[in-house]
């Protein structure tokens, strides 16, 4: 029981902690506020993605990967372990989405949006051994789901 209580407590203090971390960046520059991060590309290997018309074949491959590696924690309409993904391609840049898939550890440490998401959901977004080309296919699947 004690442990459970502690974890709940831990859950409560985490956002505060994250806030502290955000404002103690070696006493130098204050990191960007979350609002100004709208349009952020995140941190990771992906710096530029050019989106064209929806590629059905790519989306289909993305769906298969999503079901194996992502669906245990993400649904579209409701929060499960991670946030509901409906509308994610409107909320975030394609680069941010791919970086979150490919580089979740560094993202939750340094990216303000990812930090907020961790504080809310309390489970570290996991790297699922996804290649960059596969992340691009998953992005295409997310685009397809948002067009419905």
């Amino acid at each position, binding site marked *: 029981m004690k442990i459970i209580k502690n974890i709940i407590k831990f859950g409560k203090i985490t956002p505060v902690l994250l806030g502290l971390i955000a404002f103690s960046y070696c006493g130098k520059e204050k990191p960007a506020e979350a609002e100004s991060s709208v349009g952020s590309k995140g941190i990771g290997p992906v710096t530029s993605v050019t989106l064209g018309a929806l590629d059905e074949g790519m989306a289909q491959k993305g769906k298969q990967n999503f079901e*194996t590696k992502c669906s245990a924690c993400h649904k579209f309409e409701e929060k499960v372990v991670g946030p509901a993904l409906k509308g994610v391609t409107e909320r975030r840049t394609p680069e941010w989405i791919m970086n979150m898939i490919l580089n979740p550890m560094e993202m939750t440490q340094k990216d303000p949006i990812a930090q907020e998401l961790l504080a809310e959901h309390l489970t570290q977004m*996991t790297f699922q*051994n996804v290649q960059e080309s596969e992340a691009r296919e998953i992005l295409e699947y997310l685009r397809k789901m948002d067009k419905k």
Partner: protein
Amino acid sequence: MIFIGLGYGCKGGAATAALASDAAKRVYVAPGEKDEVYAFLSGGFSGQMSVYGIPSARLFKIIPVFSVFPENGYGYDEETKNMLRTTHGYVPWDDSHHIEASMTDGKQDGRWLFLNANNTPRLARIDLKSFETKEIIEIPNSAGNHASPFATENTEYLMAATRFSVPIPQASVPIENFSKGDFKGTVSMVKVDPKSGRLSIELQILVPGFDYDLSHCGKGKSHDWCFFTSYNSEQAYKMIEVGASKNDKDYILAFNWVRAKQCLDQGKASNFGGEYYRNYLPENQPVISEKLSGVKMLQPKDCPGVMYYMPTPKSPHGTDVDPTGEYIVGGGKLATVIPVHSFSKLMDVKDKPEHRSGMIMDIPVLKYESTLAGEVKKPCLGPLHTEFDGKGYAYTSCFVSSEVVKWELGTWEVVQHLPAYYSVGHLSIVGGSSKDPYGKYLIALNKITKDRYLPVGMELPQSAQLYDISGGKAELLSDFPTVGEPHYSQMIPAKLLMDKAAKIYPLEENKHPYAIKNEKDARVVREGNTVRVYMTQIRSHFKPDTIEVRSGDTVFFHVTNLEQDFDIPHGFAVGGAPEMPNLLIMPGQTRTFKWKAPKPGIYPFYCTDFCSALHQEMQQYIRVLP
């Protein structure tokens, strides 16, 4: 001499504060920094292998090999339990003495380690990407598989020889018939597939019934040969400690394995009985267990030139070959010298009648002086094992006087005595049994620690002591307790292994027949009284997560860890499972927990390996119906 070990520094090792602080700096690995060397220690009576970092002496892992391991389920689950299958049935334990590292051109290549089982004769292969046991092969026609597994220079073969001679084939004869020649030994050549590492018994050679104790194979010029010590050439069978210590000299058996292979290819070996199991783990599938029958057996008389006996004082224990392949050092356990044979001399005299003193079972016995390169005179009491630093020096452990002696090859002069606390058995230098020692560190593996650590009741830990041998004088740096009995060790530079270590089992490569790769496929399937639960785990939940079965059902939980992230195993345990421990399931792996559904009620199951902030919520219920 005896007081060297027992009169020295009972209050600690390093003599002065300055020395201690200097030694402390050299073994300190700062938080976040990594060690320079992997030390793999066998577990002796634990049957396992442990992995330490050197110089810090931090324990990283225990690799289960020959004994069950409830901590992670090795030897219990449907996937690994067959690894411990033998012709005697399921054997849950063994006694593991010697570790050998795979080599290419005599140099450690970082692919596999091999370990022997002494009690129920077997050899194991441990993979150095996953740091897991991948194969265990039983050795038929053997008892007490002590002189193993010693590899030839390119790991063409592993050698294994019998410590306890027995009637071969087995027969219930009067024990006194030992001294009448009814008991025999065997030397086994176990082939290692150069690509896969898979093991197979290619040939056995029937040898006189002595106790074959240890072995090492040649290098360079002596590439074609392996050497085996033997004691009890007296063939005593009662009060062996007295009876087997009568002869002034026993033997080192020089075995030309290339010649043996030639005789096999020429059809000189005959079909011989002997059943044995070979169990191996294909990547991410359950263990495949095969029962095999029959071997090829070669008699020395049918293959002249295959074996020679070199007399060696007295009840020799270790036999070690220096990096050049020229010197064969005998650990003259009960002798006052360390005898060293010369490979060149052996080649020169082996077929000259004037250098022979007789024959035993058609194996020529050479004269001691004919193959002798030199003797290290009065080095210590009870010399056992020798390793080499690659700079022209040898280090020999001495059990009785509790020390390691450093001596020079060629001059046979002792240059340093290093106290060991206490009763040192094997010792190990980084790459010290290979053609290309890395040197720098030596560990002495001690059997007795008496007053070295805080007392913890009757049984105290064994220990390892770390010496820096990079300078002119070797220095004791630290002293650490170990897991099981650290019988022998192979130390390998970290740079050879660390970048190759596996991080996950890729899900797409999982070929387990009951694996599922996404939650959509999670389900419960009934087949008569058998229930199969196709289950997934990911931080921090199971699917399916509420399960109903009937009392008396046999339930198989086939659990796949869907994580593909480094260092996130999940556990699986069910309350009140009488025959199963915990399972730890690696990312991308499937393991199976077998459970007989007990009397009706609600039974919780949960993840035992702390995985996330919601780990405590990773729990579910099974309902057992009448």
